[in-house]
């Protein structure tokens, strides 16, 4: 019990010491996760909307592919990314292995199916209803598109924040493609895993607290934009 309390005490000392190494790790984590979330949102939101709203042959198979991809094991994604970007791989000449870019690619591969799947599942019925009502009220394509995005804004935010949560808490894939190199590709999760194995619990706890705080802030943002605040925005039935 004592070592836990000592760990917590040490964690707070570390957080308020404004240690340069700690905060560079935090910033790199945020940068990598944010970049991969943006890429995933740009691909996943339109893809999920389009395939969710439209009816086409093979939609059921596609939905099964989405759901499978949502649960992709991170180490497998890491391995596939390494095979592609390693020196002997098809993109080996670009020299991406053990760089933050490689980590962004791996996280994007993990997060895109999550964003796509959430948008796809929830826009299937609601999106069609919005298009239908716009049609009966005489909206043209432009008006319908604007309404669709406005109405599905809470859903898009939920998907994006969930994706960010997945990215920032990811360890397996970034460890494989990034290599946890000090000052270069070391992020919070890989640092926690390493410190823990070395018995440095105070550092692990400090990073854990920062990770939880980031998660709390992103979720608070989501809550304010969807269910709270003064803008009257409500989530319909996602």
């Amino acid at each position, binding site marked *: 019990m004592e070592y836990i309390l000592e760990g917590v005490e040490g964690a707070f000392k570390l957080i308020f010491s404004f240690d340069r190494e700690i905060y560079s790790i935090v910033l790199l984590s945020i940068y990598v996760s944010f970049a991969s979330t943006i890429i995933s949102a740009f691909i996943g939101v339109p893809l999920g909307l389009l395939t969710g709203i439209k009816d086409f042959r093979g939609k059921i198979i596609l939905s099964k592919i989405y759901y499978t991809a949502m649960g992709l094991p991170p180490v497998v994604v890491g391995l596939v990314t390494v095979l592609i970007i390693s020196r002997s791989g098809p993109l080996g000449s670009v020299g991406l292995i053990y760089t933050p870019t490689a980590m962004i690619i791996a996280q994007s591969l993990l997060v895109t199916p999550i964003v796509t799947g959430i948008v796809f599942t929830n826009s299937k019925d609601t999106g069609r209803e919005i298009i239908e009502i716009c049609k*009966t*009220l005489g*909206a043209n394509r432009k*008006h319908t598109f604007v309404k669709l995005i*406005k109405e599905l804004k809470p859903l898009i935010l939920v998907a994006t924040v969930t994706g960010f949560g997945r990215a920032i808490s990811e360890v397996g894939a970034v460890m494989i493609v990034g290599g946890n190199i000090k000052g270069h590709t070391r992020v919070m999760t890989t640092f926690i895993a390493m410190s823990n194995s070395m018995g440095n619990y105070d550092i692990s706890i400090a990073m854990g607290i920062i990770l939880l705080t980031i998660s709390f802030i992103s979720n608070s943002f989501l809550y304010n934009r969807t269910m709270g605040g003064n803008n009257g925005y*409500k989530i*319909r039935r996602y």
Partner: protein
Amino acid sequence: MGIKLEDIKKNYNGKTVLNVKDITIKENIITGILGPNGSGKTTMMKIIANLLEPDSGSIIYNGQCFDKIKDSLTYVSHNSYLFNDTVYENIAAPLKFREKENSYIEKRVKELIRMFQIDYLNDKNALNLSGGEKQKVSLARALSFNPEILIIDEPTANIDPNFIKLIESTLKSINEKYKTTILIVTHNTAQSFRLCQEIVFMKDGKIIKHSSTNDLINSKDTFIKEFIKLN
């Protein structure tokens, strides 16, 4: 003259849910669409409202292609989607789609809000309303642009009995004032008798009677007689 449906067919999973040979729904009157559950009423209305594609057949309106009037036609169901916005913005939406001037929009929305006695809901988010209030907002929104054809699926399904009268008198006055062609899908035979000049009776995807309301009331068909008695 009116809405002419020719050989309209619709199948779902190999089962024919609608098979209409030839029918003309008169313009400028209120027509009721009656029939038991699964008789194809909503499917037929959704096809007329351009929300469903028929597998075959065509619709002609006053001798011209039906597509030409799709902007002046609207469809309201008992659980129509309301936008995640204020009641005012919901009612104003069709007018904004038509890029009307703000002063006209404001005047028209206020007029409809007064007509449906929903002044107290003006700034409320439409998603926070009760079922009956949502129904009134859906109707007000549908009427905002004075449609030529108004299709309503169960117009008073969630409405408080006190307001059923208000909705019925509003529909009647709109029909009289603007000569709007109104098609009402309902289970409520008494309501259809109060409101409609003509009634289309459907069973198993087919129209088994299309007549004046009085003729339907006096129908000798045992199924229709039984349906009227039970509803």
